[in-house]
């Protein structure tokens, strides 16, 4: 068994992703327009929204992995689900941390029950439950089934949660972000670039994590 990066493709991907991340920081810092009333704080948007996108994408992968686990009965899909759940939760935590940091200068207070942040918080809490079941759920073979089920119903719940939270308190609609499509090109293009770069980072993280989970499983089986 060898390290993930022994494979030349993975090594190149890592270096490529590293360069892209550095480029992203440079691009955001110097190539984006300075919005009048938010100044530097507005540029948080270029990492806050891609983090949310990656987090939700990852939770979607958990749902797919759960379904595939039940269809194919293959442990590989359980590993995919666990890896995607971990990485998704990391990015969702980043959203929940950077959101209030962005909100404090803009809105004056760190937390408003704004629909998207609230949905993110609810999903985060559901996944805390997911990891508790993984740890305390009992026998490992059962736990895989429980985890797959929770992954499926968690993402199934997302559209309903978002809809109900959005109309729950209509006076709190003040997201400091206009609709994506209506953004001027100077903002939209660096945002899309950042989004693609974050997605590439995510793909590398996911593949690496799946690999490490698999060799850990092999180690346990050998012992």
């Amino acid at each position, binding site marked *: 068994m060898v390290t993930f990066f022994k494979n030349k493709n993975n090594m190149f991907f890592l270096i490529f992703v590293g360069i892209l991340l550095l480029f992203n920081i440079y691009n955001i810092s110097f190539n984006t327009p300075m919005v009048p009333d938010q100044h530097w704080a507005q540029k948080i948007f270029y990492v806050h929204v891609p983090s949310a996108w990656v987090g939700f994408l990852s939770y979607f992968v958990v749902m797919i992995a759960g379904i595939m686990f039940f269809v194919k009965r293959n442990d590989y899909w359980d590993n995919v689900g666990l890896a995607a759940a971990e990485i998704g939760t990391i990015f969702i935590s980043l959203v929940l941390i950077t959101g209030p940091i962005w909100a404090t200068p803009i809105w004056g207070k760190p937390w408003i029950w704004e629909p998207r942040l609230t949905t993110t918080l609810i999903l985060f809490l559901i996944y805390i439950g997911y990891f*508790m079941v993984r740890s305390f759920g*009992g026998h490992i073979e059962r736990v895989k089934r*429980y985890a797959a089920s929770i992954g499926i119903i968690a993402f199934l719940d997302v559209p*309903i949660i978002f809809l109900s939270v959005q109309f729950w308190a209509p006076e709190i609609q003040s997201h400091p972000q206009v609709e994506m499509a209506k953004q001027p090109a100077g903002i939209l293009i660096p945002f899309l670039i950042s989004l693609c770069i974050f997605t590439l980072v995510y793909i590398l993280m996911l593949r690496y994590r799946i690999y490490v989970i698999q060799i850990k499983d092999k180690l346990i089986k050998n012992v």
Partner: protein
Amino acid sequence: MFFILLKKELFIEFRSREVVLSMLIFGLSIILAFAFTSNVSKVIVSNNAPGMFWIMILFVSVLGVHRTFSYEKNFDAFSMLISAPIDRGIIYLSKWISGTIFLTLMQLVIIVPFFKFLLLDLPSNFILFISTMILVNLAIMSVAILVSGIVMRANFSEVLVPILFFPLVSPVIIAATKISSGVLAETAYQLWQFWLLIIMSIIVIFALAGYTLFDFITEE
């Protein structure tokens, strides 16, 4: 087959009346706590009454659902149930409907203490209130039975059920409070019919998911 299982659930309950009674008593203690913590001022309570009602129902449902599954857990009737050659999704459906029936029975009794102890008037459009309540119960139970079925055989199930259940059921709670506020304040139906749609979609989605997933969850 479904009706046989449903009759079994109801029969067990009618003999001991354990689930409904314990939910009822727990509900009364929560009402007491509400009374103490809101200084029984009519202004405070009448604003928050629907919310408080559904918070109480949330806690009571967790208790009730735990009791519903604990029969199977204690006497290992679960493995016997699973080895029967039936579609296991029907177990979910029977527990869902019987859970809803228990919750509704308990609520019909607890409405009077809830409104009277908190010094409110009983709702004038009783029938509408009860019917929307039954719909919300269906939604709550669809989520609760599914979550409970997933974690029931773990050791930590008493802790895991609330932790998983409360975030998953948040849209139900939002919708339930909006509907109840609308019904109690006798506002026009158009204003809160959107929330009824939300409740209906939750019922459909979770009942389907529960019916499909129960087969996989209860494998050995």
